[in-house]
């Protein structure tokens, strides 16, 4: 199966521009890979074959005419949380099983404008609520490194697709770790940008003060290229930040020597698998050899990030998902007795178990008498965690640590206990609460399964974080490993 079409996004974009192969040839080859893998991985909810081939033909004409953009003809996939005009957008839910978006998300429109060709929409945890991609209405996604295992979540379809080289890059979203955790578990690179860096317009809302769009790719250089095209101010997103987008690709080669790296003491805790820790420590050694200065830092309130998140995120989710009422779009129950019955049964039947659990948790913590004790308390703790990060960044440039406590786990292993599942995101949630950019990059293997190193930076330091990741990938080859059968 090995060949030119499994190159990195940067290589494929260069190959297209040099006319070494056409976009149609590339898209055909990757569609065949998607078809061949679908029964095993279930990475896609929809494959947009005809549209992809016609977009690829148009891209080839643009390449021939010399009017190509940065990504002209480059195949990508979108997480099925991003609205795509005229294409079914399900968010992994029965609720939106027949929803055809009347407009494009800003991320989708920007990547389209840069010339990227969409091959399809990737599978995910229902409404992005999960850490294993098992809660999808369309069945679980499987990890290409071992199909008995989860790929992580909620962006598990995008992660599995990139890891299996079905596409060189895919969009994803991260509310509590949903880009970085699947990147770690699938052995690829993922970046969650600063809150406000990438437009949330047309990105189906889960928890609006935490949600942020980003990318999953093979390398940090690929992530820099995709992110450069999709980031930036958008008047349609009221929390979009109006600051210029640096050229992340041009900034990749900035020198690493002298970089002050803080090792998060709280991340090297009892919950961290000893083998995982070993791989992360080895990666830190590499940074030291590259000239980084490592110091230990402590963020004492960080252990409270998971409980704070599981108040704030469900609260925002219960409010956001109130729009699904069976009236204007989405699932409607059969033969409603009255309006109340229409709302309750449409929602009861249209949402899956985890989504209902979070809506009810959110409803409870926002209800009268409990609002102060849970919701306001969690927001105050969020402030403490944020202050911890601010203090740390006064003395270091970036923070490093593991992305996850363990490598990928078995499908079904954590579905019975929500708390065990929630604790998967113990190292990633902090960056969401504080709105910080963070990447996960592959840094080795434990019993044949990939392990991720996490790099967190101050607000709007995507260029710094990506260049630090790139420096590591220049001297290591962990990110180039491909799961058996997908090379």
């Amino acid at each position, binding site marked *: 199966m090995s060949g030119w079409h499994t190159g990195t996004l940067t290589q494929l974009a260069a190959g297209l521009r040099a006319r070494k192969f056409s976009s149609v040839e590339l898209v055909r080859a990757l569609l065949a890979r998607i078809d061949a893998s679908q029964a095993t991985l279930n990475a896609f909810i929809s494959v947009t074959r005809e549209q992809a081939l016609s977009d690829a033909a148009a891209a080839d004409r643009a390449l021939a005419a010399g009017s190509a953009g940065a990504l002209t003809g480059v195949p990508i996939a979108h997480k099925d949380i991003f609205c795509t005009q005229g294409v079914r957008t399900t968010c992994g839910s029965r609720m939106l099983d027949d*929803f*055809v978006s*009347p407009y494009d998300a800003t991320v989708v429109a920007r990547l389209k404008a840069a010339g990227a060709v969409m091959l399809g929409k990737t599978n995910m945890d229902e409404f992005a609520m999960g850490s294993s991609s098992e809660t999808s209405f369309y069945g679980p996604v499987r990890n290409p490194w071992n199909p008995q295992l989860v790929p992580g979540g909620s962006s598990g379809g995008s992660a599995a697709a990139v890891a299996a080289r079905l596409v060189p890059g895919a969009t994803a979203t991260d509310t509590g770790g949903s880009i970085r955790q699947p990147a770690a578990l699938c052995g690829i690179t993922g970046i969650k940008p600063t*809150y*406000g860096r990438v437009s949330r317009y047309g990105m189906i809302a889960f928890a609006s*003060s*935490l949600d942020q769009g980003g990318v999953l790719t093979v390398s940090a250089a690929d992530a820099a290229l995709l992110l450069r095209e999709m980031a930036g101010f958008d*008047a349609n997103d*009221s*929390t979009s930040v109006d600051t210029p987008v640096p050229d992340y690709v041009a900034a990749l080669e900035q020198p690493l020597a002298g970089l002050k790296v803080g090792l998060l003491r709280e991340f090297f805790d009892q919950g961290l698998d000893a083998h995982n820790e070993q791989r992360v420590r080895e990666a830190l050694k590499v940074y030291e050899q590259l000239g980084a200065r490592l110091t230990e830092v402590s963020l004492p309130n960080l252990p*409270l990030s998971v*409980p*704070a998140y*599981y*108040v704030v995120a469900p609260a925002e989710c219960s409010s956001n998902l*109130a729009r699904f*009422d069976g*009236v*204007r*779009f*989405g*699932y*409607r129950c059969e033969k*409603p*007795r*009255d*309006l109340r*019955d*229409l*709302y*309750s*049964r449409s*929602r*009861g039947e249209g949402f899956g178990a985890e989504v*209902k*659990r979070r*809506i*009810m*948790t959110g*409803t*409870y*913590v926002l*209800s*009268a*008498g*409990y609002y102060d004790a*849970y919701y*306001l*308390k*969690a*927001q*105050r*703790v*969020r*402030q403490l965690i*944020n202050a911890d990060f601010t203090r740390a960044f006064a003395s270091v440039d970036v923070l490093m640590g593991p992305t996850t406590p363990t490598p990928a786990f078995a499908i079904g292993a954590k579905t019975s206990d*929500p*708390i065990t599942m*929630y604790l998967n995101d113990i190292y990633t949630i902090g960056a969401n609460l504080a709105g*910080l950019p963070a990447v996960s990059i592959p840094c080795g293997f434990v019993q044949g399964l990939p392990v991720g190193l996490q790099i967190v930076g101050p607000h709007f330091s995507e260029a710094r974080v990506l260049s630090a990741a790139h420096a590591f990938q220049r001297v290591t080859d962990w990110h180039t490993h491909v799961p058996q059968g997908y090379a």
Partner: protein
Amino acid sequence: MYDFALVFSLRHARREPPMALTREQIASIATLARLDLTSSEVPVYQDSLSRILDFVGALDRAQTTNVAPMSHPLAGLSQRLRPDVVSEQDRHEQYQANAPQVAAGLYLVPKVIE
């Protein structure tokens, strides 16, 4: 519509651990959230929500006197204003293509007033 019984029960139930929600509380939360639960779902949520609330109870350990609640990650960012001019076109036909039931440009629901 306010569920007074639930609001009353919540206000007077103190949050002393170990906290276990009753079947009635789960039913009331589901009513507030407009979620129709089957009888087999109720005990499942009774168990998991109780455990989640117990878990997030760890927040009580944090000293937060004089700490302002943080609702947004970017401090100092305020809502942008824009000129009060029409910026959207009428696309209701396109939007209503996704509606379960529409007639004459209107969304249909069961009769509300007898």
